[in-house]
Structures are given as C-alpha cells and as structure tokens.
C-alpha cells in the first residue's frame, strides 16, 4: 500500500441502535436512583480513588449508559466503596450500590 503518512481515524461515535441495553435496564431495576444522575461530576471531584488512579465515576456512568461495557470491569475494581461520592451527590444517587451492582452484573468481584 502507498504510504500516505497517515491513516483514516476511527470514529468514536457510539451507534446506540447496535447496543445491548439489558445490563442497563437490570441496573436501573436494582437501583432506580441511577436514572436521576445529571452528569455534574461532583462524585468524581470528591473521589479518593481518582486522586491516585484513572478512576472516574462520571465516565463509568456514561459508558454504562451507552452500553460500552468492555473496559468497565477493570475500572470498577479501583473503587474503594468509601461512599464520599454519595455524600456530595446533589441528586441523591445511592452510588455504592450502583458500583456494587455494576460489578455483579458485569461478573467482576
């Protein structure tokens, strides 16, 4: 092949029509407060784990909502379940059960 000096960038667009939302609906049934999130990021700002690792609750929530489960299992292991995020959440999300149930649904410890 001719060396053009570049390659075609792959798209980061998520086609929601091709996603499997079963796991999302499962989580929403177990922890209904998950639906109330407005993506403010207060949880991530106060998170102790994110001080030392790439752990980002807001990002995890977005990826889960878009049914992008592939990379989540490893990320979820970083949470220490301290619950600081639950204290600061302005929408009253119960975040510890959200993380715990995500782990269960995705079959992580």
């Amino acid at each position, binding site marked *: *092949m*001719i060396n*053009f*000096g*570049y*390659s*075609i*960038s*792959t*798209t980061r667009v998520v086609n929601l029509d091709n996603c499997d939302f079963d796991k999302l609906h499962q989580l929403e049934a177990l922890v209904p407060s998950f639906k109330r999130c407005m993506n403010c990021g207060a949880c991530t700002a106060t998170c102790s784990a994110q001080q030392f690792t790439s752990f980002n609750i807001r990002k995890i929530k977005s990826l889960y909502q878009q049914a992008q489960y592939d990379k989540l299992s490893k990320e979820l292991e970083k949470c220490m379940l301290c619950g600081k995020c639950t204290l600061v959440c302005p929408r009253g999300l119960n975040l510890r059960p959200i993380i715990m149930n995500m782990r269960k649904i995705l079959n992580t410890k």
Partner: protein
Amino acid sequence: MTKRFWNEYQKEIAEDHFFYERSCIRQTFFPGSETAFLRMMREELHKDIRDEENQHTCTGIGYHSDFVPLETTMTVVARLFSLMTEAGYKNYVPSCVTSFGIFTEMVEMWKHNPALLEQTRENLRKATGREFEIPENLVHPSDIIYKFREELKKNMKYQLVNRFTGRPLRVVEHVGCHYAKIFPEKGIGKSEFPHVLAGMIESWGGEVVDYPERRHCCGFGFRHYLLQENRGYSVANSKKKFESMEPYEPDFIVANCPGCAMFMDKWQYTIAEMENKTYDRDGYGIPVLTYEEMAGLLLGYDPWELGLQIHQVQSEKLMDKIGIKYDPDAKYRGANGKILPKPEKPRFLKQ
C-alpha cells in the same frame, strides 16, 4: 401543502454589474470552473462581470490556520475592495466560499466597530495609497446561478435525467460551511435549509438525495489537513459522509466550496488505496462536480474545457447517463493541440 422553511430566508442578489474575484485553489483543482462561470454570465445571461487581473489571495487559508493576523487579512480584503472601487463596481462576487466567508466577516466587523474600519483605511493608505468602498452587494457565484437558474435552463441542451431509465439523477448536494454557517442570513435558506444547490438540481431535472449526514463537514477544515499527520481525521469526515450516502446510490455529488469538492473527490482515491473500498456499485467512485461544471455540462460546454479530466473520479459514466457527447481522444489534449502525458492510473479506483 408542505411548509418550505427556506422560503422565509431570502437574500438580496444584484441583477447586473459584478466584480469577480478568483480563488487560489479553485484555479488549480477545477481549472475550467471559473472560466465557465464567466462564460455563462456573459454569453448565456448577458451580464456585465469584470475579471480583474490585479487580484490576489484573500488570505483565507492562512487566516483560518492562524498564520495571518486579523489586521493583515483586513488590509488585504480592503485592497481587493479598492480594486472593485477603482473599476467602478459595487457588487462583489468572490469565487471561493472561504473568501465569501472572509469578506462577510470583515464587513460585519467593520459595521460593528467603525474604528476598526478607519484603522484598515489608514493601513491600506499607508501600504498602497489606495482608497476603498464596502460593496453594496456581496454574493457568492452560486447565489447568482441560483437566481438565474430558470434563465439558464432555457439554454440547456441536457437535463439531469438518466436517459436509459428516464428517471431523475440522484444528486448529493454539499454546501460549504463558510457559505451560511458563519452568518446564516447570508445564505439562501440560511444554514439550516440551504437551498442554493438543491434549487439548481430540482430546476434542472434532478432529485436531491436527503441522507443522514447531509450537513456533516466534508473534512476540509484547514488545520485538519495542513499537517500530514492530521489528515486521517479529515479523511474520516469524508468517509462518514460517503458511508451515509452510499445506500442511496447517488449519481454524483455537487458542491459550491473548493475544499469540499476537492476533498470529496480526492479522498475517494485515498480510501480506495487504503481500504480497497469505493462507494458506488461498479468501483469507479462517485463523481464530484462544482456547480459551474454541472451547469456547463447541461449547457453543452466541452467537458474537457470544463476540466473534468483533472478530477480524481472520472465523469464519463455520468456523461453517458445524461447523454452528453464527448471526444475521448481530446481528453488530454492541451490548449496548444498537443496531447499531454496521461496520469498514472490508481490501483483500485477504476477509470
């Protein structure tokens, strides 16, 4: 009756006496388009249009890439306006959509900040000793063709109809971002319902393809392609459009911006080389025309004088569909009658 929103947004387009400004890149990539436009204006529409020999760049590419400062661009624009003023014209017609965006932007800035206008007048005076007036009417050539599309139709020898099936040709129209996305009210139909090219296609017998990524950027974007390493992003934009239009099987693409027409044409070659993929059934690619080339073909102008052989995706199949007669032996004949060397054939894109 269906409500046509674009009807609510009309722009003023002068009747006659235009000052034409040529484009830097259009003369390289679509060498016949500007000549064809001037020919249509003079011979078909009998309008007065001046093709000024002392014109120069508008700085558009340099300006949008942050190489040329705003004050310089303003002074360069002022010099171009001074050429128009000296020639006794008031209606300015820049060939390039980026130039159109630049001029509109500068005029708008001067309108809101008269001190800036005075400073530009002073800069131009110091640099060249010239004076200038702001144009009374600033339009893109596609606006003029749109306005007089029915008059042009009377002189047309062909229509956008497939002569084998009798059906209208399916045409993808792509309007340049700088035509109406910077100042929506400066475009026919504003930025949401740009009708400038769709109007030509509908009037001349074709059918406009309304596909999901119709208003997506072509990938030109100045900074996106200036550095070789970044061009993958630019190709990805065009690829997204091609993938979206592919199921509709368009007969050709028409654009009013030099960047859009160039990249949607050339990237088809690049994608074919990289992924062995074309977006038509037969592997020839989808021809990309400028609106002047489309109008010129229908008016019966010689396709090789229009410069169709310079395109990456060749247009013979399209011309056969419309029924346009052409001389294959004259394809690479220069203006002096000599046969020029044929370009190397792509590996995957058929020709």
